[in-house]
């Protein structure tokens, strides 16, 4: 088990956002978290990457409890998140953004190699190499955010709503690349509102409602689950 979340709770001030969440991600998997707005999907991501401290429970990565480890040190352990809303550095060029992704690394030859790999995955980024991150389109920014997270060579890639605000065709593209990244050996945990795409791409998935996990199963199972269909796939 690469990542194991054991009964975590988390509070924003007095409001409890997570009510005892447990889930796990095996090495080599794509796992999806789906749920409505405010269900706590992004909060789980923030807890894993360390932007938010959990109130109780454990987050084990490769067997080690990292729930008290600082966010920047979790990156060094192999967890890297492409933040929600893309979070590219607007004043840095595409290349500088990617270099920032490799901030914790010092092996410049391998970094250059990885950058070529990212440009291979996202040829659009190569075209825009010198352009400032803030001037890219939404889809390009998402590509940059994913590519930048890859530059850290994560063992576990966290993607927070990679399809948010994108046109259907671009969403398709992004998900194809996520599958490709996974096949190249990176484990992926992704949060999505676009349940259709997420479930058809994921090995396993969890359904989240108001801070609780209400269902789990393989992507295909949940895709055909009547309750999930009704609630998240817009099919009665």
């Amino acid at each position, binding site marked *: 088990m690469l990542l194991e979340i054991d009964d975590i709770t988390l509070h924003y001030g007095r409001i409890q956002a997570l009510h005892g969440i447990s889930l796990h991600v095996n090495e080599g998997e794509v796992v999806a978290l789906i749920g409505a707005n405010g269900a706590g999907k992004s909060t789980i991501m923030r807890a894993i990457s360390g932007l938010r401290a959990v109130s109780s429970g454990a987050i084990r990565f490769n067997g080690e409890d990292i729930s008290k480890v600082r966010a920047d040190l979790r990156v060094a352990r192999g967890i890297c998140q492409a933040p929600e809303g893309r979070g*590219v*550095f607007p004043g840095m060029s595409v290349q500088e953004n990617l270099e*920032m992704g490799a901030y914790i690394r010092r092996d410049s030859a391998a970094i250059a190699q990885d950058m070529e790999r990212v440009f291979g995955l996202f040829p659009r980024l190569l075209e825009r190499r010198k352009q400032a991150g803030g001037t890219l389109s939404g889809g390009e920014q998402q590509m940059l955010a994913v590519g930048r997270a890859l530059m850290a060579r994560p063992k576990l890639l966290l993607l927070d709503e990679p399809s948010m605000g994108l046109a259907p065709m671009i969403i398709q593209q992004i998900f194809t690349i996520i599958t490709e990244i996974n096949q190249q050996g990176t484990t992926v945990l992704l949060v999505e509102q676009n349940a259709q795409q997420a479930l058809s791409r994921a090995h396993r998935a969890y359904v989240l409602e108001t801070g609780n996990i209400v269902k789990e199963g393989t992507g295909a199972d949940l895709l055909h689950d009547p309750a999930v269909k009704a609630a998240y796939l817009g099919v009665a």
Partner: protein
Amino acid sequence: MTTETVKKQRWKLNLRDRFQDMPKPARIAAMVVFVVLLYLLPTKAFYENLGFPIPMGSGYLPLYTTGSDMAGVLFQCGYYILLALGLNVVLGYAGLLDLGFFGFFAVGAYTVALLTSPESKLITEYNWLESPWPWLLTVPIAIALAMLSGVLLGWPTLRLRGDYLAIVTLGFAEIIRIVAKNQDWILNGDRGIPSVGHPPGTWPDGEPIFELEFTPYYWLVLTVIIGVIFLIRNLANSRVGRAWVAIREDEDAAELMGVPTFKFKLWAFAIGAAIGGLSGSLWAGQANFVNSATFSLENSILVLAAVLLGGAGSIGGAILGGFLVIYLPEWLRSVGDVFGWPTQVQVGNIHIDVSPTSLRFVIFGALLIVVMIYRPQGLWPNRRRAAELKDRQKEVAPVE
């Protein structure tokens, strides 16, 4: 218009690019000449030999200088430029709004005063020191103490985001001023500390270099500025500098890239504070007398105005801004003298002070508003910051 012609025009307009296209020896030579001219700025020879007309009699033509106290004004510009450079690290690089930056200046100045003055209570009452220290020895201590106060102030506050820092730093500067004003046991309140030490050195004829004459102080501060510029430039281009940019642009994303954000914010704060303390120790070395009246809040605001006016995140901008906020009112005054601008107007039986010096905040207020409307990135902007600003404007009013 094709992109090619746009590029060409931009190339023509952009002095920085043209400078960088020059061969390296030419660039160095140009810099050396420029620096030498800077050193000559307060001397009369500069104006005579460069063909500036000098009016009959003595003194300088006030249309481009500030009259006979030119060196003094330039020295004041100098330590404000240092302050602006320091705040630029905090605000321009790391994006932290520090409203009480002058507090570090006060820490530096008081440290020098307490250690170098024979009338310091450390000597006269507490017997901590046997005799006053030489000025030069106290400068590193002033820098270290300013840095320490920066760390102590930043430690609890830099974990928070947004406006908290602005409020706490504002409070810090005011606390220093008020404590200095009201307590008696060491800083001596309004009576202050007299006979503060000067920098060392004597002319060949045995006269001390640093006395009442301002020109050597200007040379000293100019030299320090050049050193600080080199230091900051190297920092900005290092891993530390890139981390600062990332923190400023998106702190969450920076953290997710593995940047220890708190540590680097604290560094920015400490380095900025150190430069502020250095500035204060230089000022104290000249001032001879240090009391609480020097450290009013408007100084902090003036430094902030300097950085924003010049262009946050840009060394050139900080220098330009620091220079303008001091030089402009002085220059306006001397120009005002020439054209007979009144220092007071009388409305009924109320006398209103309208001298440029006392109106400077009105002038800066107006100037800042104009600059922020037409050139929000500052007069000499940092390219990256200009791009960030555009991005933020897009967020406020999306352009489709």
